[in-house]
């Protein structure tokens, strides 16, 4: 029966090529617009480490006076900021209250290749603790992370990206070799495989990786070397730092990311209590003159709290789906027109014994065929749309916005479902055709 209806549908559609083309184009354009924006949204809203999203947490501590009004603070609406001061980060590291933990910050190094033919160049780097590699499941091609002992010893060791290894060591296994960073020797302990999570969840200040992380060094070593954060250090809610490096470290300026891994919810509850207790202690000791406030968010909540997706993209998603809706209303109008054009045919079929159910089923199959054709057009237009967006918007935000199988499948399903939904009313109207009345006018 389905095959017969399908044949009928195709024949019917070919008989009004203009209307059919308009319907297909309408659905195709709508799908193209909405899927293009949705693909970008999905790429930006992605959770690259979803399987661990409920284990990775970010602690927040209010270390600035909530009463000092500062229009400059990076604080969120809840008054908490997303970075920690050096004092707090070191205290949390020393506590070992979580199974794994790391303070992190982004910095830059000047690399001097051992090959005198190559000029020195600058590279993005990240200072952290050994745990970070296990926490973020950083994959290694050669070697591995440095050890906790290296952290303790402030050791001059480095793990480097594959790109940097290719550039400086020609892609060979460089473990044990010496890398000159800022004019000092570091021993390479590991070379990463390609690893660039998008968005870069562990540092959302640079969520789309404008500066790649090419070098990882121990936090303790970077502090010894007076490496400042390459991103913003924010002192606006705090007393100004005393001069010099120690002044910076002892200040309430915030500039460090902090991550903990808490495998179970019991661990999380325990850590939450610990964190609050820590802030209360700071209050008792006179450092905080306000009620202790802390927060512990898991990765999923952290990503939504930080609003990773730009307003431009959100706006485009809204416009894209609004557009799809207009296209569906349009397709519905055209289907309505078609049903009326063809009411004579329907009358004949009814007179020859087709019941209303059969007419309804056939009408919906026609709508589905239109939807399928619209889906093909829509997928093509989505590919075109993504190419257009890539040309028009910042590259880094669109690195991963591409058509994958799930997107294609979704586009097809959406197109067919939308076409059938748009076809419901017109088809119902078709079933109301009176066979006798239609036949009389012939």
């Amino acid at each position: 029966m389905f095959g017969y209806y399908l044949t009928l549908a195709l024949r019917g559609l070919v008989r009004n090529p203009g209307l059919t083309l308009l319907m297909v184009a309408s659905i195709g354009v709508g799908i193209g617009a909405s899927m293009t924006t949705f693909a970008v949204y999905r790429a930006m809203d992605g959770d690259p480490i979803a399987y661990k999203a409920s284990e990775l947490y970010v602690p927040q501590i209010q270390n600035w006076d909530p009463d000092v009004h500062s229009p400059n603070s990076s604080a969120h609406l809840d008054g908490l900021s997303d970075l920690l001061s050096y004092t707090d980060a070191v205290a949390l590291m020393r506590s070992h209250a979580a199974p794994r933990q790391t303070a992190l910050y982004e910095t830059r190094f000047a690399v001097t290749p051992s090959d005198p033919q190559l000029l020195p160049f600058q590279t993005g780097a990240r200072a952290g603790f050994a745990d970070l590699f296990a926490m973020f499941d950083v994959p290694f091609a050669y070697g591995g992370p440095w050890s906790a002992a290296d952290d303790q010893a402030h050791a001059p060791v480095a793990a480097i990206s594959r790109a940097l290894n290719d550039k400086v060591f020609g892609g060979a296994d460089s473990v044990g070799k010496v890398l000159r960073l800022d004019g000092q020797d570091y021993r390479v302990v590991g070379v990463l495989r390609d690893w660039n999570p998008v968005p870069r969840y562990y540092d959302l200040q640079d969520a789309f990786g404008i500066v790649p992380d090419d070098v990882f060094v121990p936090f303790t070593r970077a502090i010894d070397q007076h490496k400042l954060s390459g991103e913003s250090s924010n002192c606006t809610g705090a007393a100004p730092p005393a001069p010099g490096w120690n002044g910076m470290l002892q200040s309430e300026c915030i500039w460090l990311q902090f991550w903990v891994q808490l495998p179970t919810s019991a661990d999380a509850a325990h850590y939450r209590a610990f964190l609050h207790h820590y802030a209360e202690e700071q209050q008792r000791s006179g450092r905080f003159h306000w009620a202790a406030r802390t927060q512990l968010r898991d990765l999923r909540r952290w990503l939504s709290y930080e609003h990773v997706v730009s307003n431009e993209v959100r706006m485009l998603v809204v416009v894209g789906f609004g557009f799809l809706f207009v296209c569906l209303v349009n397709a519905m109008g055209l289907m309505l027109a078609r049903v009326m054009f063809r009411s004579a045919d329907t009358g004949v079929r009814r007179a020859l014994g087709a019941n209303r159910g059969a007419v309804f089923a056939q009408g919906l199959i026609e709508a589905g065929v239109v939807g399928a054709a619209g889906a093909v057009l829509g997928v093509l237009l989505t590919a075109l749309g993504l190419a257009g967006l890539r040309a028009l918007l910042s590259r880094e935000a669109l690195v991963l916005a591409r058509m994958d199988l799930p997107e294609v499948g979704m586009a097809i399903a959406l197109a067919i479902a939308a076409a059938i939904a748009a076809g419901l009313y017109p088809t119902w109207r078709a079933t109301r055709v009176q066979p006798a009345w239609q036949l009389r006018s012939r």
Partner: protein
Amino acid sequence: MHQHPIFSGIHRNKMGAAVIAVQIALTLAILCNALFIIQQRLSLSARPSGTDEPNLFAIANEWVGSAGDPAARVQADLALLRSLPGVAGAYVTNAYPLTGSGSTQQLSLDPEQQRTAPAAVYLGDEQTLRTLGLRLIAGRNFRAEDVVDRGPLNDPHPAGLIITQALARKLFPDGDVLGRGVYLEGQRGTTPIIGIIDRLQVPWTSIGGWGSAWSDSSIVAPFRDVSQSAYYVVRAQPGRLSELMKSVPRRLVALNHARVINRVQSFPQARAEVYRDDRGLAVILAVVCAVLLAVTAFGIVGLTSYWVAQRRRQIGIRRALGATRVAIVRHFQTENLVIAAAGGIAGVALGVSANLWMVSSFATARLPLNYLLAGAAVVLGLGQLAALRPALRAASVPPAEATRTV
């Protein structure tokens, strides 16, 4: 009850009329908001930075290692830059406009720093105004003896500040500015304002983002940036920009190898890059609007054609009874106008609510009335245009049609 033929016609095609009205409403809602966003983004990206952009470029320099006196190597670089033929001016700084990154100072008039005004800080020396092409409208420029070195962790007290007119008005609404002191974050005592410049945009440009509420509040502080990484801003004599952008970095490396030149960027390149997303969004929305209008127009053509086909006999009768072709065209055009007007009213309501939603979630501005009116005019005009072809076809129905069938 007597009903005008237009309304009775619409009444008999309730669903078709509703489809057109809904489509027009949605199209109008999207159209007026999109046009507004386009206009906003384009006007934002056309804001002047206040500098002589066509002749300026910046070199991002980073020193490698800590060998050498930081102040001396910067001085040597500046001396070289200023001696090169074709260079009209050069200075070293922490930031320049149109980059999206810089640093902020809170200025206040009371020592407790309760009420503060934020401003972008550009480090500079006695050559900065001339290099950037800024116009001093009151007071004086820095003198060589005002300028001191500033590294990453020392925060010396500035001898005086040059501020923009916009910031001066904000700090001192009474107009008396020169010589008055302001308190700076982290500094004891006040710093006098010694000069006022016409205009200098802050480095941040994102709409509704950091700095958007005070986009012309900038200060130039008399410091030579001798930190590990800094920018040299160079002004070329007219026509020599691209040549200098190639040669100057080579000359700097030849002078001192212990450096990395990360980037050489002209101000026009900086402008294109920093406003890329804004302009991109405007182009995308323009394309969306064009396609949307086309889709809606074709939808109206399709449905109206169907109406005409359905009513051929009635049209024939009207023609036979003496209606002119013009009267038939007018009938269909008026019918479309009535439907489109109903859709337009709904569209205005929808457009306003969409805008209010965007105001609350994206912090955009309120939609001005004239965008609604312009949008409504466009969709009504579009409806009339789309209905014209089917209406003309209706007018060509011969009166003899009345005698067929039956």
